[in-house]
């Protein structure tokens, strides 16, 4: 009797000890399992799909080797979509960085109404990109949007730009919508970086006769460096995935002119149902992104922001 209670208490103790010992693994298990099931497994599955002929119409999945990849590489639209992705993401991020930096510099000093202005300036971050695209389409679209009317009034002659179908205006429209939504992203991060620069540095510099633009180049920019790298990296990684505004504003058009890689793969996979070809293409895209990411993240870790 006594022995058995002792035995049971030992067992109970060891069970809680077991959970205590493995506590750290028990805590990470649910999240890790979920990511394995919905991200790692699908990716492995898609690797298989990209080497077979996966078609809803044709039964069986015959192994066809690299044929899907060859089809993607041979498709001029695929190559063009990659060019569009690079053009749009690089120019959007550049515009957002310059405007975000200017905004951060303008907002770093305190003034009346700054808090309220701040709340208004960050609003675009919380809106669905679909709605951002819709809103800019409404503003720009001929003949409904007021943009052409305002430009005509301002310039004194009749402006009739088809903002969503005419090159280069369709690219400018897409970049404008992106900059509208994501400039606050740069602004907020860079502002946090600016406020972290100790003000006495500027005071000391002023005693040495360094101020204005010189102070900006010699103090502000170098100290802001890691923050700039962080903001640009995070933003660039998201910009390469551009899909929503393309879908709503141009539909990839005219023709296939504003296809980004994500939009191209979407049309191949979900409109033409060339599933294997789309999967092969997304693996190529994934590898290209991974190269860019590892390069940028390595730079970032070397800089060690804050």
């Amino acid at each position: 009797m006594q022995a058995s209670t002792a035995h049971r208490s030992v067992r109970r103790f060891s069970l809680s000890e077991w959970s205590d010992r493995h506590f750290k693994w028990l805590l990470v298990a649910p999240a890790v399992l979920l990511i394995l099931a919905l991200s790692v497994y699908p990716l492995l599955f898609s690797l298989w799909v990209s080497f077979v002929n996966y078609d809803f119409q044709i039964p069986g999945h015959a192994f066809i080797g690299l044929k899907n990849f060859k089809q993607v590489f041979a498709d001029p639209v695929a190559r063009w979509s990659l060019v569009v992705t690079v053009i749009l993401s690089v120019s959007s991020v550049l515009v957002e960085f310059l405007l975000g930096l200017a905004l951060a510099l303008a907002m770093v000093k305190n003034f009346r109404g700054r808090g309220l202005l701040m709340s208004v300036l960050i609003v675009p971050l919380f809106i669905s990109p679909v709605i951002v695209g819709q809103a800019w389409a409404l503003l720009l679209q001929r003949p409904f949007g007021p943009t052409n009317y305002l430009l005509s009034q301002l310039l004194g002659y009749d402006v009739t730009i088809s903002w969503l179908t005419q090159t280069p205006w369709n690219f400018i429209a897409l970049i404008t919508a992106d900059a509208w939504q994501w400039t606050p992203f740069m602004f907020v991060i860079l502002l946090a970086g600016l406020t972290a620069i100790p003000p006495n540095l500027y005071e000391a510099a002023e005693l040495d006769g360094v101020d204005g633009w010189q102070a900006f180049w010699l103090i502000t920019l170098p100290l802001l460096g890691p923050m700039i790298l962080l903001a640009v990296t995070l933003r660039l990684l998201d910009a390469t995935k551009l899909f929503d505004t393309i879908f709503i504003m141009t539909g990839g058009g005219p023709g296939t002119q504003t296809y980004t890689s994500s939009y191209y793969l979407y049309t191949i996979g979900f409109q033409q149902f060339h599933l294997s070809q789309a999967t092969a293409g997304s693996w190529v895209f994934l590898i290209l992104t991974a190269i860019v990411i590892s390069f940028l993240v390595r730079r970032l870790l070397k800089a060690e922001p804050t």
Partner: protein
Amino acid sequence: MATASVRRPARRGAPIGRILFLSFWLIFVLAPLYWVFITSIKPSDDYLAVPPVWFPDEPTLVHYTAALFAYRGLDGLVNSLIVSLSATVLSAVLGTLMAYSLARFNTGGKHLAFWVLSQRFLPPVAVILPIFLIYRTLRMTDTHFGLIVAYTVLTLPVSVWMMYAYFRQMPKSMEEAALVDGCTRWQAFWSVAVPLAAPGIVAAAVFAFIACWTEFFFALILTSRDAFTLPTVFRAFIGFQGAQYGEASALAIVSLAPSIALGILAQRHLVRGLTLGAVRG
């Protein structure tokens, strides 16, 4: 967001230039929002007027009722609420559990933490194709459950990393004291660490909710007639030249109001949210 005023020699940049730039930007930010709002209450006859109607004489709410009922915006709203709230709770709970383990026990070393982070940068298009095929076999397409699980995984990296940063800057002493007093590790976590981290958990949850609420791509592909969310309702307005401007705008207003309100409430944590906890702000 640190709003502490930084005193700085007040000479750089003429104030007049600064005021002009900020006013220009304020107009640029507000213009699309104003135009969407005005279009949502404008009678259809005013759409094509030249000069444009900047404020309608007879505002109307017909577009709102049409968007909510004829275009099933209300169904989308309910679906969005169900999916976003469930995914937010799941993401916050699982994210907090994992972040605590990473921060306190350095579980899996740096590798596990960075593996989770790398999920954040996966192109959605690379994952969505196989998920779609798997869901199709499991009959999970167009279900709330399918989208909830997908959104949980989508938001987990940010939740984990926000909470990871939060726990790391929280002192361990309280939990250690609880352990000395005979608490199990779980008790030290649940009744000491979690209450202390509550503000961080709420902030992470708010950003997860906004991410789910505004998400379009996954919803576009994984849902159709039943589980469709609010952003996907906008599909109905593409290609119809002009007729549904009012409905599209009304729907936009309904959809953007909650996420903007939440975002401004969580403004203080914005820098942490945007940088996945890397910058404290």
